[in-house]
């Protein structure tokens, strides 16, 4: 583990322990200074790591000398903590009681949604952007499941774009919103009137071109990890539309979109916490595939147990 890896892990452990931002920066600066001091004395990275001790031990030894972030208020914390049980209870009632395992499993979205709603400090549009993927997915699956109309129901995912535009601090966002609205309306009209959906996707090209021109496609919507995520988005869209169009797999191929947050987490998160953050998406995939193809809804919910198991195994390491 080199210096950056060591300091990144130290930062992660400090953050896990809710150490205040200022204190965290102070400690990291001190440990960087110590690390550099040993490098100047000709020690290897392994020797320095041995000298300084593991970041977990460092943070343990500092307990009592640090200030901690104010914790979120209790009722919110309690709701986040009990949300998995509420979701499971609803899932069992509808599953065992009425044999509606699918799409009742969508109540598991309550878990990440409650965590986002109660812990996000940014404005309303940021909050909506964060929870809109869950709302859109839930609507897409519910509407698709009961009507069989997955196309053009997928357009509900465009809501994510709408909210993302609204978070922008510039006047051009109304241009983007206008273009999105016009493209969507035309796409919908051509689709409904002439049953043509494939080629009319080109109607969204002007919006993409304008967003690319102003450098917003990647920056605002998918963070600073432009290229890898950009490729993943394009690949998933291609897979989704090809699989849907040629094999009519609209109702299962939405799962490919989960690779977008998974890749974003892999790139954006440091250390082992990335695997904890990815687990909900893996669980949803296992759960849905077992339920959809083998009709094992009453057992496949066990896949969600992966979330606490991974968190405990990796988090306490």
């Amino acid at each position, binding site marked *: 583990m080199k210096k950056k890896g060591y300091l990144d892990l130290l930062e992660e452990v400090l953050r896990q322990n809710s150490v205040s931002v200022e204190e965290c920066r102070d400690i990291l600066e001190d440990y960087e200074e110590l690390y550099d001091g*040993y490098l100047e004395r000709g020690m290897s990275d392994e020797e320095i790591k041995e000298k300084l001790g593991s970041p977990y031990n460092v943070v343990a030894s500092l307990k009592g000398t640090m200030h901690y972030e104010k914790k979120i208020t209790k009722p919110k914390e309690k709701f986040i903590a009990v949300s998995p049980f509420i979701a499971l209870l609803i899932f069992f009632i509808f599953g065992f009681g009425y044999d509606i395992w699918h799409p009742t499993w969508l109540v598991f979205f309550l878990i990440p949604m409650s965590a986002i709603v109660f812990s996000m400090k940014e404005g309303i549009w940021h909050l909506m952007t964060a929870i809109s993927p869950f709302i859109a997915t839930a609507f897409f699956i519910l509407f698709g499941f009961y009507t069989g109309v997955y196309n053009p129901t997928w357009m509900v995912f465009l809501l994510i774009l709408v909210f993302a535009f609204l978070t922008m601090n510039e006047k051009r966002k109304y241009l983007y919103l206008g273009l999105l609205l016009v493209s969507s309306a035309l796409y919908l009209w051509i689709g409904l009137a002439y049953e043509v959906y494939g080629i009319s996707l080109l109607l969204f090209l002007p919006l993409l071109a304008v967003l690319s021109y102003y450098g917003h496609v990647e920056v605002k919507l998918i963070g600073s990890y432009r290229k890898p995520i950009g490729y993943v988005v394009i690949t998933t869209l291609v897979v989704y539309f090809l699989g849907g169009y040629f094999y009519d797999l609209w109702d299962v191929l939405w799962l490919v979109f989960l690779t977008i947050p998974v890749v974003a987490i892999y790139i954006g998160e440091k250390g082992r916490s990335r695997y904890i953050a990815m687990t909900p998406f893996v669980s949803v995939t296992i759960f849905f595939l077992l339920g959809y193809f083998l009709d094992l809804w009453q057992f496949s919910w066990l896949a969600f147990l992966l979330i606490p198991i991974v968190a405990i195994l990796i988090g306490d390491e």
Partner: protein
Amino acid sequence: MNAQFKKGVVEMCILKLVSHRDMYGLEVIEGISKEIEVNENTVYPILRRLTVAGYFDTYKEKNVAGPDRKYYKVTSDGEAYLKVLLKEYKDFTARVERMIGE
């Protein structure tokens, strides 16, 4: 040596060491380790605790070989605290010496 007892003694030694001249973190660690077997995870938390308690002031100084260094300087409160610690320690060791010397 009992860990708590050692921590108390190391705290006093750190204050004494830095009272001679301002030092940066690694210098303190090396200075203490010459005489007492300690590691970074003993010394650094003490430096932080003494700073938070107001017994040390810190300031940054340029370092040509790398990033700036944080220097520790004993405050007047720190000097007073050191005097108390030294007196307590000397009284204590004198009593212990009398007992075990019999």
